[in-house]
């Protein structure tokens, strides 16, 4: 049954990478591994998008080094995306990157009927600018509060505390052992990085494509710094950090 003069439409799902391109990313092939992981994830991401026609998956990317800038400024349908390699060099303007994303999450340009966005912060170091201010500005945006915020630490020099601040404190669980998507994901080599990127672009995008309401109390909890997204994050992929798994050497 058709409805004349009525435009029915699926809902946009914005997926935004925030990629550390500081000089340290050039070491040990980290930059190359990140570019490779993102590029390799695109077919799987496209397949998830096809399986969830109610969501229109749109990808953007911010790179940050001496300054933050949009690497992929236009929200691009995943099937049209051709990844241009990021280049490493400079310091780590992570706070500025958060400010850029905050501006993009204002409504408008964000559509009121959009699905909660997915933000993926990837870094191997520590911010060299005012991270707190950038994060505060980001978290003032309602769309950032309800976004799925993930962080991937590349190597052991990454500032896990800062990445955890980006994600928000884990609700109902104390700090300590065990892996959780509500904690920074620690990629110690190219293989585990690729697995995490693949997981974020397929399993998480699939979960975020699912229409589900958020109860106002959960939003209030988010404001209080608790991460209580209604989106149930899928299980993490197995990695080298799993004692039961063996996927590659520790190189970073």
């Amino acid at each position, binding site marked *: 049954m058709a409805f004349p003069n009525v435009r029915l*439409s699926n809902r946009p799902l914005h997926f935004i990478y925030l990629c550390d391109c500081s000089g340290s990313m050039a070491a040990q092939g980290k930059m190359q591994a990140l570019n490779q992981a993102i590029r390799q994830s695109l077919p799987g991401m496209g397949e998830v998008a096809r399986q969830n*026609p*109610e969501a229109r998956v749109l990808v953007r990317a911010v790179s940050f080094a001496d300054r933050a800038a949009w690497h992929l400024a236009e929200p691009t349908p995943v099937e049209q995306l051709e990844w241009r390699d990021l280049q490493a060099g400079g310091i780590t303007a992570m706070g500025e990157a958060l400010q850029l994303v905050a501006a993009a999450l204002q409504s408008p340009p964000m559509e009121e009927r959009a699905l*909660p966005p997915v933000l993926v912060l990837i870094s191997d170091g520590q911010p060299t600018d005012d991270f707190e201010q950038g994060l505060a500005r980001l978290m003032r945006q309602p*769309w950032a509060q309800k976004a799925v915020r993930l962080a991937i630490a590349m190597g052991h020099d990454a500032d896990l505390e800062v990445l955890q601040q980006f994600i928000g404190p884990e609700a109902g669980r104390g700090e300590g052992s065990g892996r959780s998507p509500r904690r920074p994901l620690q990629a110690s080599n190219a293989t585990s990085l690729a697995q995490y990127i693949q997981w974020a672009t397929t399993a998480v995008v699939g979960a975020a494509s699912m*229409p589900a*309401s958020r*109860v*106002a109390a959960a939003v209030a909890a988010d404001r209080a710094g608790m991460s209580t997204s209604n989106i149930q994050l899928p299980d993490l992929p197995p990695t080298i950090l799993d004692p039961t798994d063996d996927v590659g050497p520790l190189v970073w």
Partner: protein
Amino acid sequence: MSGDWLPPRSCSVIGASHRRRGQPCQDASLACGLRADSGTLQLMAVADGHGSSRYWLSQVGSALACQQVRQAVATALQHTPLADQQRWRELLRRELPEAIVQGWLAAISADWQQRPEAAQQAFTPATYGCTLGLVLMAPQWWGCTGLGDWDLVLIPAHGAAQLISQEDPAAAGHDNAEATASLCLPQAAGLCTQRATLAPLIRAHEAAGAELTLLLSSDGVRKSCATDADFLELCGQLAAIETQAELAEGLAHITGAGSGDDVSVAVGRTGCGATATALPARIERPKCGNNGGDLRRPPLMVLTLLLMASATGLGLAGWGWWRQRAGTPRPSAAAKEAEHGAPPPPVLKEIERQCKQPPARIRANLSQRRMQFRQLQQAGDRQRALAMLEAADRDPLGALIAASRLGPLTTCAPLDLALDQQWQPLPPAAGASRSPGRMPAIQPPQPSRQP
């Protein structure tokens, strides 16, 4: 008298996304008539289970919510004459929500005790979380109450559909469109007060033959539409569908081409006199009393006068009072021009563009910018308004809104009215004392004299 309302209809259809994933439909809906000595009360309701894993029994919660609505309204009807509008207004604001919430909590608790999970897990209402909207239709009035992200649309016989009740995110304790109030919240009954409304129906010979339709829908319907204007157009077409099968087919199409969420609608309509008559072909707006080419003047009939002000403590006078209190009154045109000059050309073009559109579309266009209005209403947000003005090339409608915040604009009457409606002050949060000044959701038509 059996009343001028035809028996309402309702329909819930599983979302395309839920069907694909093998999940149940988490929506429920209800449409029925309840009889009492004082007359027949038509009732319709929609409930929308939250759906994520945290609310894994929300499909049970929504079904039980509809059951409780029926029970609570039936009980109230036995003790309250339908002619007592003041009493029903109070019932919609306080007692019915309280009874429904309490009954729902008892019902979901009883359901939980019968489940094997009860042995391992503590009971929490969140497991059954859902929204609830309900509409009562009596011979002399209609009213609604509830909480959550449902929408209520009024479709007059001759005129555009109007969104007359929607969740105000700020009033519900959040500020984004995706979040919603819920029956599982501790303050659920109090939140219903914000959306409680009773509007009398006024008979008037000027509107003889006029027909009124109310369409209640879950959020999946509106979120399937590209814009609110599309949503209003869709409501008009849904309301004109005659059969349950076609309604289900239409809803399946909506969720498939749109949000993928479960979708529910309930439709109530005044009939042609006391007798229900066959409706004309769908899409075409029904014309009561004009049956088979009979051009005689139909009997005196019903015209709605939407007197929503009393239910929500509203009014233009209060709006002025609020603007004084808000501390950010719009400066005079002269002051604004002196400070900022005339609105930039993109704003002037946008005014021209908006004013060429029908009033309903203007309202819909502005309604989609609720977030901007709310952000600009925050104290000390003059800088935000100026920034939006600077971005007029990129977002001319946003700049128009910002300009209207900074000072009066010369526009056409429908745009001016729509802007004023959007600048209504926020209602107070649950539990807070109600401040005056909120205008009705729509501009009430001029009252007509009784013949």
